[in-house]
Structure formats: structure tokens, C-alpha cells
């Protein structure tokens, strides 16, 4: 009897020792993990993370275009030039845009709301439903993207998107960035600066550029992330929530 209890005591001590070792090791382990995250990703993305965004429309300022310009530079959209002889109005409508500034006016009250609109990274994306080749897809971490290696440029996804988030590249692009490949005949849209995320960064270009702090970006599945905390603290809406797409981009003060 005494030997059994002794055994139990010994086990307890062993476990306690093991636990202490883990604790002692913990700072080293955490440091290691952080270092690994700063490096380019070597393991597949998982659904343990879902990237999302919260946009506070009360902080979004009319006339400010910082996030749009930052997106254009980050993703090389400013390198896409108007095709020779193209109509100005047509170009304005058709040039690629991943993020747009939208001004809404309530005609009854006259209240004006400013917001930015981009791919909403739906959980149930209509663009993925309609894609005939599987080029439009949702990554495990919730980012909706176009695999332009298999995109045939049919533009069904552009028709299906309720947010008008996608753009089509109509002409050859002379200069491209390494981080943002781009070619004639493919559809593209906001990808939450996926090259940044895959290289260990945790912010998007638009968020970094917004001096009004109207954009909060982060992991919706992590309760301690800034975006989750903000969503918990303030009432937010999904645009066209009647479609039940469970968007990854939410808005407050609309």
C-alpha cells in the first residue's frame, strides 16, 4: 500500500519536474515560434486562423485616399497603365481596383457615410460557387483568392460578386512586382496582402496607411486579436447580410 502511494508521489514529482522544465523552456519556445513566423511560411495555412477586418466608417474621412494609394503601391496596381487609345471614362470604370472609397448618402436624412469597399472574404463566397475552373477559391485561412494559373478570364465571378470587388486585366502589363504577378486576361481582387501574411507579417498595406485608424485587421478566431476585441466591443454589420455569406470584413457606424 505504502509502495503504491510512494509510486504516486514519485509520479507526481516527475510530472511536476516535467512541468517545470516546460515552463523553463517556454520563453525559448515562444521566442523560437516568433522567429519562425517572421520567416517565409514553410507549412500549409490552416483553418485555425481566419483573417478578417473591421472598418469604422465614422473614422473614415471624405477626401482621404491613403488606403487606396497604399494598396495600389503594395500590389503594383499603379503600374497598370491605360491602354493606348482607350477612352478615359471607360478606363476609369475598368481599371483594376482592389479597394475603393465609397460615399453613401441617406436621401431621407441627408447623413453621409464614408467607407472603403473591397473583397469581403466571405465564408461562402459566390465567386467560388460560380467559377468553372476552380481558379476562384478560398484558402484555409479564409482569404478568397484567384489562382491566376488556372483562371480563364470568363468573369463569371465578377458578375456573381455582390460587392463589385473584382477587377479584370484587359491589356498586357509591362511592369510587375515580384510580390504581385499580373497578366492580361485574368481576374483579381484584394487578397489581404497575402504575400505579407505568408512572409510572417500581420498587417495589410491599407491598415498601415490609415492614419485615422479606421481599419482593424487580424485573426477572427483569436479572441485576443485587436479585430476580435473590437468586434466584441462595438456593434458591427455585414454589408448585404441578407445573402448570409458570413463576410470576413465587417463595418461599424454605418
Amino acid at each position, binding site marked *: 500500500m505504502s509502495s503504491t502511494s510512494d509510486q504516486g508521489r514519485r509520479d507526481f514529482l516527475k510530472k511536476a519536474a516535467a512541468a517545470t522544465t516546460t515552463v523553463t523552456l517556454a520563453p525559448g519556445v515562444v521566442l523560437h515560434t516568433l522567429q519562425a513566423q517572421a520567416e517565409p*511560411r514553410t507549412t500549409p495555412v490552416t483553418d485555425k486562423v481566419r483573417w478578417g477586418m473591421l472598418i469604422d466608417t465614422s473614422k473614415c474621412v471624405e477626401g482621404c485616399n491613403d488606403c487606396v494609394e497604399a494598396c495600389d503601391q503594395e500590389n503594383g496596381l499603379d503600374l497598370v497603365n491605360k491602354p493606348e487609345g482607350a477612352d478615359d471614362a471607360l478606363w476609369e470604370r475598368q481599371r483594376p481596383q482592389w479597394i475603393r472609397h465609397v460615399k453613401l448618402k441617406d436621401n431621407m436624412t441627408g447623413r453621409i457615410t464614408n467607407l472603403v469597399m473591397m473583397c469581403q472574404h466571405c465564408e461562402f463566397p459566390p465567386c467560388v460557387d460560380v467559377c468553372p475552373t476552380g481558379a476562384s477559391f478560398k484558402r484555409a485561412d479564409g482569404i478568397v483568392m484567384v489562382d491566376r494559373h488556372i483562371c480563364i478570364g470568363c468573369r463569371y465571378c465578377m458578375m456573381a460578386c455582390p460587392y463589385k470587388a473584382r477587377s479584370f486585366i484587359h491589356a498586357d502589363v509591362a511592369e510587375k512586382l515580384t510580390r504581385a504577378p499580373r497578366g492580361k486576361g485574368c481576374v483579381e481582387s484584394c487578397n489581404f496582402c497575402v504575400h505579407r501574411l505568408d512572409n510572417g507579417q500581420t498587417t495589410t498595406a491599407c491598415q498601415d496607411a490609415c492614419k485615422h485608424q479606421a481599419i482593424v485587421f487580424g485573426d477572427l478566431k483569436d479572441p485576443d486579436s485587436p479585430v476580435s476585441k473590437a468586434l466584441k466591443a462595438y456593434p458591427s454589420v455585414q454589408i448585404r447580410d441578407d445573402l448570409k455569406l458570413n463576410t470576413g470584413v465587417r463595418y461599424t457606424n454605418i
Partner: protein
Amino acid sequence: MTGKRSITLLAILVSSLFFGLGTAHAGEGVEGTAKADKLTSCVEPTPVMRRRHFEFIEHQRDLTVHQGIRGSKHSLAGCVDCHARRDASGKPVPVNAEGEFCNTCHEYAAVEFDCFMCHSTVPGEK
């Protein structure tokens, strides 16, 4: 070790020789200015690369786009980064330009490739 060092020295010597001659005008790649020129082998042994480089990058593109894996040794950005030469003024020359690394072989083998319809042809930002 000494062998490697002597190769490096030789490479520097050769490249300085070419710089000294000043034969290459702007826009034309200068011999020995690509990172690859200073290395003894690619990410795989040369015969393997010659036969299978397209398989490597085609497989890698799916892993990168769909799974977000970027820290791999088989990447097109890696090819460009290592094989792009510089012109006399130090500007990188597109790898698919006439006489450059990708073009030389593909021209000879008469194999068209579409990588650079979308991808950057010069080493770029991260």
C-alpha cells in the same frame, strides 16, 4: 574550402576583366554579374534542373498559391533572383531578354513559356 575560394576569386577576376573592357553597353547583361555565376550548383544538381525545373516550379506554384508556402527552394522568384544578370550600369536585365539565362535555352529548344506574362523578370522586392 580553398577550391571554393579560388573559384570565387576567379569569378571576381573574370567579372572585373569584363567590367574593365567595358564592352557591354547598357541593357545587355554583363558576364558574371548574376548570383548564380558565383555558385557551383543550383538548388538541385544541374542535370536534374535541366530536365525537371518546370516540374519543380509548376508544383511549387500550387503550394504557394493555395497553401501559402513561400519559404521553399523551388520558387520562380528564386530563379529570377539568382539568374538575372546586370548591365554595365548595374541595372538588372530581364531573365527572358534575348541572350539572357531563360531565353538562351528556350530559344534553342524552341519551347515557349508563359511564366513572364505575369511574373516579374527582374529581381524585386521581397
